């Protein structure tokens, strides 16, 4: 069963996923840009997969192209779940 789509849950999922892509945990923050965190398109594709598996929310190519910061990703998932 998909987890509840709350900002708190989604932020936890995203923050826990990013180190799997080699991101330094101390650099993770809502304001951080994916570019600064050295998170590329493959990482974002995998993050989308993690989010889909956890919350049932599908993020497509167009969506991923628009998100620049960690906060953007969290907000997008939360808005899709609303």
């Amino acid at each position, binding site marked *: 069963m998909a987890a509840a789509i709350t900002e708190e849950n989604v932020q936890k999922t995203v923050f826990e996923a990013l180190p799997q892509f080699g991101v330094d945990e101390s650099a993770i923050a809502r304001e951080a840009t994916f570019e600064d965190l050295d998170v590329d398109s*493959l990482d974002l*594709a*995998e993050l989308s*997969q*993690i989010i889909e598996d956890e919350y049932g929310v599908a993020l497509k190519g167009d969506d991923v192209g628009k998100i620049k910061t960690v906060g953007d990703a969290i907000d997008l998932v939360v808005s899709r779940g609303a």
Partner: protein
Amino acid sequence: MSSRPENAVALVTGASKGIGAAIARALAADGWAVAVNYRSGEAAAAALVERIAADGGRAAAIRGDVTNGAVSLLAQASEALGGGPVLGLVNNAGVTRDGLALQLSDDDWDTVIATNLSPAFRLTRDALKTMVRARYGRVVNIASVVGPRANVGQSNYAAAKAGLIGLTKTLAAEVARRGVTINAVAPGFIATDMTAELAIDEIVKAIPARRQGTPEEVAAAVRFLASDDAGYVTGTTLYVDGGMSA
């Protein structure tokens, strides 16, 4: 070098006979749990599964047309083999609809592309979702010497096979750093039903090895590319053609 997880499943499409069947046997002998996909060769697929089991391997027959629903084949493969992740994929299913381009119908073109090329993309895309997360995957696309090389009367087949080689390279580059390798094997003239009607004596004169290859020789190449030993081989095409492309 990462190792294949113990419960890993390999799906081989079009595996009830010929090269596909030989690949299924070779992968099973190497420890993969093998999903033998077939479209209509139910009896042959069942016999193959029995033979693999008799040889000490694990296999299950999965009925399905690769032109319909890639995801369900992957799900069926996993379910039939104990729920293990599908971390091996051999895109082997293929058909021919030969004729000079001037006389090929739209259906002749569409059928060959829809069976030989498009499913390879869809199945690989969907399998990558698991492979990328697992940090392990082996995809082998069965291409052909026909594609990079002209073969009169097979413009559709050549386009599909050349397309498979291009697809292999780009997909390989996209996911290489996740421990997933994607390669192609390009058989030359191999003794199977697909080549049984051809003028073999004339053809072999143009082959440096002066003979057709066997399905087992193609399968050996696939077995290597699907193994842990081939972890640094990706985006390449291995020709098994008796020297035709040399």
